[in-house]
């Protein structure tokens, strides 16, 4: 009977593997095309996977809790209805050919000795193969604690990936950094005036964040190099302005994306941000929610920070932070008068391969100008 081998899909741009969290079908069950048959969790999302064919579930190749590389087989479905599935008939041999999750004798022995699960390791060998050295390295902390007392916290999959990406970004992107000071008194007042009505109407709190995102998105349309990607073949300008918003969770860091943020008004941005944050907390973000960000906004001020030097997310050119709003006496106007104003720092880390100081500073100045001349027409 013709069969279809279902492989682990790529659930996000930088996702390399997924963990089977729940089988919705067992062997022998009928499966409709597009019917979800398995739940898969990655470090960033959980997703139900629709069946590519109608038929009968024949074999669950991967176990619940097992982490499987993208492209590796997870299930085999008897494609009963189809009589034309010539290509799929040869696919079971892929199971034999897929080496990435087959471990060498040395890896198996070392994993047993060191009590390391090789399936949780990221292979440094060819095609991501887990090598004997990977196992030894993973076992290292247990034998050589870096400090005499205290505990070692095992790396979760999410933490390990965050670490890898941070290192990769810092290693490959020459970070430059700059900061500006923004007088947000007017927009702060606008927010204070509107927030109760806004919450009644929309059911979400009105913060300064959507105003800031709007200013950043608008600036990106005027400075396309800030909305770009460095590749060896050239600087790729992104057509869309998709803002990644940093959401910090317990031990994890997520960057859900507001698509075409430059086309959205403040109220829409507020709703989109709240919806994404809610999904992040519930663990219901889908791959699409996380993919395609072109520039990142981080509300570090929410925790009282007044200055930060963020690491640029991979595949982006810049990350902008909004720091805490602080009332300070400011000298302003032509008469050198001193006034108490609500001041906020905005910090920018940028990929110096793509942009230089002139563009970066002009970009920040553009954001500053947008916020200092808060446009009531842009709201709600």
């Amino acid at each position, binding site marked *: 009977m013709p069969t279809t081998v279902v492989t682990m899909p790529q659930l996000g741009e930088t996702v390399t593997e997924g963990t089977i969290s729940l089988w919705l079908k067992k062997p022998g069950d009928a499966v409709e095309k597009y019917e979800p048959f398995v739940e898969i969790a990655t470090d960033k999302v959980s997703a139900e996977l629709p069946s590519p064919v109608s038929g009968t579930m024949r074999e669950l190749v991967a176990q619940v809790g097992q982490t499987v590389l993208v492209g590796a087989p997870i299930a085999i479905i008897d494609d009963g209805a189809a009589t034309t599935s010539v290509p799929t008939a040869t696919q079971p041999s892929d199971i034999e050919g897929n080496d990435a999750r087959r471990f060498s004798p040395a890896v198996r*022995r070392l994993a047993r000795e060191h009590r390391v699960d090789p399936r949780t390791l990221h292979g440094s*060998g060819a095609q991501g193969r887990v090598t004997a050295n990977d196992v030894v390295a993973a076992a290292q902390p247990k034998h050589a604690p870096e400090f005499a007392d205290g505990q070692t916290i095992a790396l979760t999959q999410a933490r390990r990936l965050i670490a890898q990406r941070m290192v990769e970004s810092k290693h490959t992107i020459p970070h430059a950094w700059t900061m500006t000071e923004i007088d947000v008194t007017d927009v702060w007042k606008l927010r204070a005036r509107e927030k109760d009505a806004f919450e009644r109407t929309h059911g979400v709190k009105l913060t300064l964040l959507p105003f800031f995102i709007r200013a950043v998105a608008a600036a990106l349309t005027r400075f396309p190099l800030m909305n770009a990607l460095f590749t060896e073949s050239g600087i790729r300008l992104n057509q869309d302005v998709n803002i990644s918003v940093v959401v910090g969770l317990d031990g994890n860091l997520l960057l859900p994306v507001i698509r075409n943020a430059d086309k959205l008004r403040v109220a829409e941005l507020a709703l989109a941000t709240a919806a994404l944050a809610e999904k992040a907390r519930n663990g219901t973000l889908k791959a699409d929610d996380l993919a395609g960000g072109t520039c990142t906004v981080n509300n570090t001020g929410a925790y009282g920070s007044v200055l930060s030097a963020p690491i640029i997310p991979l595949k982006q050119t810049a990350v902008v932070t909004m720091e805490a709003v602080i009332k300070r006496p400011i000298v302003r106007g032509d008469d050198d008068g001193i006034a108490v104003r609500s001041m906020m720092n905005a910090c920018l880390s940028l990929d110096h391969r793509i942009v230089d100081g002139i563009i970066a500073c002009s970009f920040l100045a553009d954001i500053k100008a947008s916020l200092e001349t808060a446009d009531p027409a842009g709201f709600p």
Partner: protein
Amino acid sequence: MAVTARTTVMNNVEAVRHTLHQALTNDPNTLILGEDVGARGNVFLITKGFLEEFGAARVIDTPLAEACIVGVAVGMAMEGLRPIAEIQFADFIYPAFNQIVGEAAKTRYRSNGDYTCPLVIRTPYGGGVRGALSHSVSIEALFYHVPGLKIAAPSFPADIKGLLTAAIEDPDPVLFLEHKKTYRSVKGEVPDGRYVVPLGKADVKREGEQLSVVSYGLYVHQALDAAARLAEEGISAEVIDLRSIRPMDRTTILQSVRKTHKLLIIHEDHKFGGIGAEIAAMVAEEALFELDAPIRRLCGPDVPAMGYAQTLENAFMISTERMADAMREMVRF
């Protein structure tokens, strides 16, 4: 192993000559027999002047009859002499197969230890010298199957002296292989005076962490060149010179594999049923759970002989580049 303070730089052919001369000088029971070893002084001039110095009873020109050379030598050895027989080129050894395998190797066993056969059979082997079908062959795999026969194949001057001395002093037959391409291309320091390298002991010529390369003969030198080149890429390969093919130094090979978890075997002789097959099987039996990659063999092709045409010879011989490529692939695996 004797430690001597003084050394002399010589090439491989000089090391053979020096060691034979020392043996003939020190032990009156030693003698040399073979084709052109006397008046001609050997085709590589290894024994030039020996006839005049030691006389026709100890430096014997034989007919072109290899069965006779080894057969006569077996008789001499059983009766207490220490013959060093020469087969002019390894390609000519086949007529003596019966005398080597059927007689020499079995003498001790057949006589229940009453007789031994302290015989050395030296012969130049190996290709890469435009030697074509009759002057290029590697013969070790034809003989290493035979219990009772020891085989040495050193390729550094000091090892040649140490192992040839050990072979001459050994109470049992030893087939002593000299790669002819290394005769004049390889130079090194050789200890003066008595110097012995025990049979059956390999030598780590270069220490490394990521890959064990086991070879012998000419290819040890190329493997060392490849390893040095790869070191510049940050790749650390260990190179083991087998030196003796039988007894095989399992300990050194296994120790290395336990460290690097990867094994590459390189030899000039044909791949099928070659020395590499035995090493691979031995490691699979003894150290399977140390292996982090499939064992790989880089060997001569399974064709009947090395062609004379340069293209055919190049196709048979393994270049240093091919060795480096294989080593790199295995480290990255």
